[in-house]
């Protein structure tokens, strides 16, 4: 029997006997959801995660977090078109977090400080797998297979690994020293690299399938696509990618005074910039697409990286967007000009896109070279049985090639490829699928989880802060192979990391702990098992929802009581 106290005084904290949790009709739960940068990354990097680590001074862990998805951050930090930044919620607040700068910083730091890839050498009796093509997709696949414990043999027709990164990306965007260092470190982590082994010449698919448990094919696109205007081609036609490769391997370049490059991708832009570097006075890019910018839908914009386009323009490249070539003006078999016409992609009512040419908009431009840069397709040497005369492979989303168990494909050799980071993602997904295949497990599709939207954040808790910008070489100094974009210094990288809004992830701001009127949020750095730093004490949580509303990161959601 409760005995009345004199004057009805009460003892401290005795209200704990009253469990106000029984009032609750909704309960708060911690729900990790992907940040938009994560969902947007073709390589599958969780930028939010490594930004958080760097912001708390854990640079090496941050790098390890990157390489758990992408083993080539020093490369992708330079050459990726970083869709992560386009998706970044912070872009709607002030400016997107400079994720690529942080990625690059961490990649460079790893090289500078010799951080080891977090893999161990495979056991001598581990199963063997083969990867064909040592471009970003193949390197990524080899690395992830190594992580999974396989003995990996990586074949390439060239003497050095790197693929497109080495062959097609100019050094002013990706210095060879960085490429060599990162690729070298990766191979040294335990990959058996076999150079100058060309499929169909030095080895056959059948042998590979016989000698290895599974094969990952990342041959890239080595064959130029056919190009003509109404069947007409100049006699001295040079294709963009070939010129680029030549320039990068032997340093030679055609001579011209006015060049028209056809295409809107990275090859077109790189080609144009190299031509400028080689002293061509007038370099034009003619493209069906629009210049990227606000309000321009992604499927209408030039596929080249916007900052590269901008830099090209700074360097004097003239871009003619929404233009098509109507006619080549030939004198003899040499080109002396092109007739351009305005054109646009218009959306039909059914959603499909149609190219429309506008009559009466034709103009003529005098050029002495026309260089198509409209893309490549897969060279079917040694692969004919898989390609069936198609330009690209058609694997499933995990890279498995239907009808060919144990054969997986990724990188530029599949449709829709074309970026280094997408290739890295293909390699990772392919490696996972191969692992499951080798274990006799069914393939597992990626589960798409909606990212946290801007409106799910509480922006009242963030300060406006300008984005940290890396130094950039002025156009007049952009000569030769010197890298144009600098990197962030350590402080800048950390500040940039601190700008991350931590979408969908607890960053231990203490808001829920601070603002719960019922003290039903308990803080525990070590004890929370759900990725947060807090636990809800549901004995006392009344379910008011204040914590969810005031969580800056959208990490707390309210659910109906069961």
């Amino acid at each position, binding site marked *: 029997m409760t005995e009345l106290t004199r004057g009805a005084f009460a003892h401290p904290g*005795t*209200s704990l006997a009253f469990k106000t949790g029984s009032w609750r009709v909704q309960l708060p739960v911690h729900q990790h959801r992907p940040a938009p940068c994560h969902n947007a990354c073709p390589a599958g990097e969780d930028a939010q995660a490594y930004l958080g680590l760097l912001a708390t001074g854990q640079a090496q862990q941050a790098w390890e977090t990157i390489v758990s998805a992408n083993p080539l951050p020093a490369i992708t930090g330079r050459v990726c078109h970083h869709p992560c930044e386009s998706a970044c919620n912070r872009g709607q607040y002030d400016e997107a977090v400079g994720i690529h700068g942080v990625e690059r910083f961490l990649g460079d730091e790893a090289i500078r400080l010799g951080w080891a890839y977090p893999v161990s050498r495979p056991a001598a009796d581990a199963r063997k797998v083969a990867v064909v093509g040592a471009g970003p997709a193949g390197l990524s696949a080899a690395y992830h297979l190594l992580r999974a414990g396989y003995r990996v043999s990586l074949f390439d027709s060239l003497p050095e690994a790197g693929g497109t990164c080495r062959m097609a990306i100019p050094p002013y965007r990706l210095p060879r020293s960085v490429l060599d260092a990162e690729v070298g470190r990766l191979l040294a982590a335990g990959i058996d690299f076999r150079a100058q082994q060309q499929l169909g010449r030095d080895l056959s698919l059948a042998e590979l399938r016989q000698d290895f448990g599974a094969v990952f094919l990342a041959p890239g696109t080595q064959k130029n696509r056919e190009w003509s205007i109404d069947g007409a081609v100049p006699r001295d036609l040079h294709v963009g990618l070939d010129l680029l490769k030549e320039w990068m391997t032997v340093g030679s370049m055609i001579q011209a005074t006015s060049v028209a490059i056809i295409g809107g991708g990275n090859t077109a832009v790189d080609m144009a910039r190299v031509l400028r570097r080689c002293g061509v006075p007038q370099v034009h890019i003619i493209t069906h697409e629009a210049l990227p910018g606000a309000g321009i839908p992604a499927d209408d914009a030039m596929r080249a990286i916007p900052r590269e386009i901008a830099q090209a323009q700074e360097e004097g490249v003239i871009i003619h967007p929404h233009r098509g070539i109507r006619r080549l003006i030939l004198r003899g078999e040499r080109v002396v000009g092109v007739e351009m016409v305005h054109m646009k992609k218009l959306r039909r009512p059914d959603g499909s896109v149609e190219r429309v040419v506008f009559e009466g908009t034709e103009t003529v431009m005098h050029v002495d070279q026309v260089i198509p840069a409209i893309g490549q397709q897969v060279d079917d040497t040694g692969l004919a049985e898989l390609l069936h005369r198609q330009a690209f492979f058609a694997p499933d989303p995990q890279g498995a090639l239907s009808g060919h168990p144990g054969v997986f494909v990724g990188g530029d050799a599949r449709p829709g490829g074309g970026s280094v980071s997408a290739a890295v993602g293909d390699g990772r997904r392919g490696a996972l699928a191969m692992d499951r295949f080798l274990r006799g497990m069914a393939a597992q599709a990626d589960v798409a989880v909606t990212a946290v939207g801007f409106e799910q954040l509480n922006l009242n808790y963030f300060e406006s802060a300008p984005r940290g910008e890396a130094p950039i070489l002025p156009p007049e100094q952009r000569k030769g192979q010197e890298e144009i974009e600098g990197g962030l210094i350590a402080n800048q990288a950390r500040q940039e990391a601190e700008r991350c809004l931590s979408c969908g992830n607890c960053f231990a701001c203490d808001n829920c*702990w601070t603002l719960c009127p019922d003290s039903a949020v308990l*803080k525990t750095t070590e004890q929370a098992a759900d990725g947060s730093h807090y636990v809800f004490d549901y004995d006392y949580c009344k379910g*008011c929802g204040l914590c969810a509303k005031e969580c800056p990161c959208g990490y707390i959601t309210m659910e109906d009581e069961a």
Partner: protein
Amino acid sequence: MNTTSQTTIPIADLRRSQPRFQGIESGHRACLGCGEALAARLVTEAAGPDVMIANATGCLEIFTTPWPESSWRLPWMHSLFENTGAIAAGMEAALKAQGKSTKVLAFGGDGGTFDIGFQALSGMLERGHNVLYVCYDNEAYMNTGIQRSSSTPHAAMTTTSPVGRDRMGKRHLKKDILSIIASHHIPFAASASVAYPSDIRKKVRRAMEIEGPTFLLIHSPCPLGWGHDGALSIEVARLAVQSGLFPLIELERGELIGTMPLRQPRPVTDYLRLQQRFSHLFKDDSRAREELEHLQALAERNIEYYGLNSNRDDPCDSEGADTVRRGGQRWG
């Protein structure tokens, strides 16, 4: 997805080892999203354990101490509605007589402060007792079921300032209690808001360091009385500040020495719209429109009078900021 929080140690142990002083325990019976419960928790947290509290009659008293339970982990006494200033004065006199340094806090709602307890409060301030008086301002008599007080804002609807054919809610203005308090020439008086916990903490700490009477007015939304979702308590409080209707200011000896600047004041309608007590102002009615304009004018007057609209650091940048930081660094 986790639907339960897992810990490897018993949650009761975890509760005991929280890295903050817990003046008010869980298990109190405040409404969902109660601004006053939160404000009192923040104040006691910042004030620390060496305090003694005199608490006026009101929600805070009722919901924390239904005998035999108490949520308090501090020496606490409730006496009456209107004598809190005097009870605190007595406590302080006793502690002074005994040579003890324990600080006395007095807690009251706006009814117990602006209205019925004003005389005792004024006496306490005039006599210079070393007491921090905290008024949890929820702008009406909430404990008795939402009757208007002299703190109720103009045009707000309460059960004793209802809306009808001839009335648009409260006819009178909210009493400018802080100016009256400051006129006692006390060392420190300030307004604060639950939407800015660091600012509350800063002001409480400052008051704790002062030997003499200090006063803190904390805007504390009442979901029941204001008619908003409890989840929005902070949002509503924040908008009150950001619209200029509830300026956060600091006064020393009656002189304005600090304000929470507003870089981009929000229209008062952003604040009013969230609350049922102002819903009549959003009807298609010329008087409603006039009252909205009136409230906007009151906010603008505050902004002008206190110089709130400035390009100084915004609240997120300034000292006492409520900017979140990774790892709860704003509390560091």
